[in-house]
């Protein structure tokens, strides 16, 4: 007796939990691989899964087995030219399967790496593990674009599709009772009188009175019948209210110095940093807008393409970009509706007398409006005035301002992690 069962529609992700357990156990290795990937990848494919390799020895599930050595005897098939007593040199690799189990790889290809794929989501999870956005106070704000409808009670005006039948009928029933109450009472009284008369003896007056009563009762009953069963004013409608859904949204200002001293290499470093920040914000907010501001002696809002690839020369006045940022915020991004982040990348060059002005701008005009301001200096060189000024800001506003120096691509991710490391706040 056999039963044939179609199981194809059953759940096919039975191994999901085991897979997660595996990822959890090898978190350290995977994190390293993700680290490497970030530095190796170009901007475009940052948001992809990743192939992870883990050294086979770290994964081993040890069991007791024999090592090399001793006397062993092995049978192989396919003898061609050997004769009993033939002797030859021991082949490299110890000559065959020594261990009873354990995957002695005889194929000669050697599997010293255990490789597998993690998907985009997992990749980003590992990428931003243990990181958090500081100052998420305004996280949920009233948005103006997304609405959801909510039940808003019962109203007497509306369209036919929304008639609430139960409530309408209840209303009609109440109206009918209220309007006919007096009439029905009179009918009851007349009927009682008629009953009483019927019990008395026959007499002409009695007959006349009965006749009169019958007419009156009929008249009143007709009046009751004339009350409409359902009237337009009985109709009740379900009401729905449109409510704006709080959307967490953020705007990110990317500020970059494009003066002559910034070469393509430095811009690339800055770009990677901005990208990481963008991906990270994207995970925390439903809606992200990015504003690109570049500056030399004057600042300008540009498109992404222009921001990263066009080249300008000239001196550097950082405060011009900060002023523009302030103006754009005032104009387009009301502080009560937006989470605002700013990231600035520069080689640290600035006109010396401009640096104090920058510090003042940031501290007095920008920081009160921003969630977070981060500054990266992409220059392997001694710091200049700007850095010193910023350091004083950091000392006064450690929660909202951070700065770091990046010399080469490999440092971007560590620096990024350091900037957004989960803080043990009270």
């Amino acid at each position: 007796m056999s039963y044939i069962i179609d199981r194809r529609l059953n759940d096919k992700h039975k191994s999901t939990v085991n897979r997660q357990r595996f990822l959890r156990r090898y978190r350290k290795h995977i994190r390293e691989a993700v680290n490497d990937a970030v530095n190796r990848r170009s901007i475009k494919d940052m948001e992809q899964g990743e192939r992870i390799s883990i050294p086979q020895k770290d994964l081993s599930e040890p069991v007791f087995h024999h090592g090399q050595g001793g006397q062993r005897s092995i049978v192989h098939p396919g003898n061609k030219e050997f004769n009993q007593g033939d002797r030859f040199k021991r082949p490299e690799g110890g000559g065959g399967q020594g261990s009873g189990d354990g995957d002695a790889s005889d194929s000669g290809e050697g599997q010293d790496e255990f490789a597998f794929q993690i998907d985009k989501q997992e990749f980003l999870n590992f990428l931003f593990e243990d990181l958090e956005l500081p100052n998420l106070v305004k996280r949920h704000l009233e948005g103006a674009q997304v609405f959801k409808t909510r039940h808003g009670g019962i109203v007497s005006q509306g369209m036919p599709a929304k008639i609430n039948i139960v409530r309408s009928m209840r209303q009609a029933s109440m109206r009918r009772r209220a309007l006919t109450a007096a009439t029905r009472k009179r009918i009851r009284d007349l009927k009682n009188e008629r009953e009483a008369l019927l019990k008395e003896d026959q007499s002409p007056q009695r007959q006349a009175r009965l006749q009169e009563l019958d007419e009156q009762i009929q008249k009143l009953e007709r009046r009751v019948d004339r009350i409409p069963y359902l009237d337009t004013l009985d109709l009740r409608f379900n009401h729905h209210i449109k409510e704006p859904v709080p959307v967490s949204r953020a705007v990110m200002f990317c500020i970059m110095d494009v003066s002559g001293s910034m070469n393509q290499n430095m811009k690339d470093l800055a770009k990677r940093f901005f990208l990481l920040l963008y991906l990270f914000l994207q995970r925390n907010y439903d809606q992200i807008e990015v504003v690109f501001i570049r500056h030399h002696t004057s600042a300008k809002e540009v498109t992404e393409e222009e921001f990263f690839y066009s080249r300008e020369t000239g001196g550097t006045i950082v405060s011009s970009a900060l002023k523009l940022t302030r103006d754009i915020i005032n104009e387009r991004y009301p502080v009560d509706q937006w989470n605002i982040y700013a990231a600035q990348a520069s080689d640290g060059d600035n006109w010396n007398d401009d640096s104090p002005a920058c510090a003042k701008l940031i501290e007095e005009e920008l920081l009160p409006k921003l969630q977070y301001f981060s500054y990266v200096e992409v220059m392997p060189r001694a710091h200049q005035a700007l850095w010193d000024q910023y350091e004083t800001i950091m000392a006064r506003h450690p929660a909202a301002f951070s700065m770091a120096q990046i010399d080469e691509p490999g440092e971007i991710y560590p620096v990024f992690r350091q900037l957004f490391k989960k803080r043990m706040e009270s």
Partner: protein
Amino acid sequence: MAYLSEGSDWNFELLADYDAAIADLAHNKFGLDTYPNQIEVISSEQMMDAYSSVGMPVGYNHWSFGKQFVEVEGRYRRGQMGLAYEIVINSDPCIAYLMEENSITMQALVIAHACYGHNSFFKGNYLFQTWTDASSIIDYLVFARNYIAECEQRHGVTAVEETLDSCHALMNYGVDRYKRPSPISIVEERKRQREREDILQKQVSELWRTFPELQPAIKTREAPSTFPAEPQENLLYFLEKNAPLLQPWQREIIRIVRKMAQYFYPQRQTKVMNEGWACLWHYTLINSLYDEGKVTDGFMLEFLQSHSQVIYQPPFDASFYSGMNPYAIGFNMFQDIRRICENPDDEDREWFPEIAGSDWLETVKFAMQSFKDESFIQQFLSPKMIRQFKLFQISDDDRKDYVEVGAIHNEQGYRRVRESLAEQYNLSIQEPNIQIVSANIHGDRALTLRHQRSDGRPLDDHSTNEVLRHLHRLWQFDVHLESVENGSVVSRYSMPPSPEPITVM
């Protein structure tokens, strides 16, 4: 007689038709005794799931299964491996998975192979009869899964994972090789588990220890000079019963792993026979279908192609050679037994006087029922088979700087080749012989194991230390392992590692 089908597509009616036709042959013509079959059609993703849970339909969660899964998934996605056509589970009813991608020919092959071949092996072979209980395994797996999930809730995933890791490392040493368990029901199992937990809890209760006079039943006994009185080969069993500091739930987890090891032990001992038997029957059954005119020539061609792929034995010098193919030797040996029964020649009559010329069906069934790989090869590998496979035996002695061909397929070599091949399938020779010899219960509670070296084969240092680390995690006091050859200790392993002994001048 009409064909059962033409073309290569399958559907459920066809599967039922083929199953009925094959069942009829298997039961009525060849008299195979099988459990009822539960044939489940699954997709390739589900097959990968099944792969990574040792083929079982339910299992507890552990990272090692996840590792297996990502490995299988990755290799499959990259096209480096195909998935097996079937997986079959030793249960009652016998569950067999068929992949939906297979053609009808493959489905018929798999039904014959798994549902009648493996199935009758599970039911007939003495090891399976003695050591496994097909009717209760699924229940037990469900129990194990739930129990371990509950432990994870109560004690945390990490703690449970660590215990399981340690148990898995010792899994091969969690089997009773000689004692025979009696099967119990799932209700009984649960009851016993609760009792065990209660008793263990009482034993660790400090009160009971402090006032022994309150328990007149406990008498002070003369302590045995050594404990355990005899060496113990079932390490996990010993730990479950005697490890001093384990929590009751940890003991139960050890027990679960031990039960799983015991359940799979017969399969590890009968790879060649089990596959050989299943191949013999898919070959015989499908050929009988063909003889009855129920399948087309095209069907047979596809069948024979798959069949010959499965039983192909690459020679030792092929680049893809990876040892003996159990399907190949198994199938050919059973076919050879049939030949010896039906058409014996003088050589066969000399080597196999008791089976030459006997009823082949009776003989192969007897062979299937009463042997395991090692004894099966020892008993039935014929000189003709050795010649056919051109088997040769290599002696590799690390004291010499050459390897020597010990025997080839000739008159002087047959017995030696056969003995050597049989030993290759003897788990007790392939696995190091390690037993617990003493637990110092009056002193520092150190546990001592002994590895009995055979043929001078040492333990692998790295993995031995790793396994001892796991053993130490369960025992929680010092663990020593002595590797003994000819009565003297050759090497010692300790966990935690002991400092170099100080030599006193």
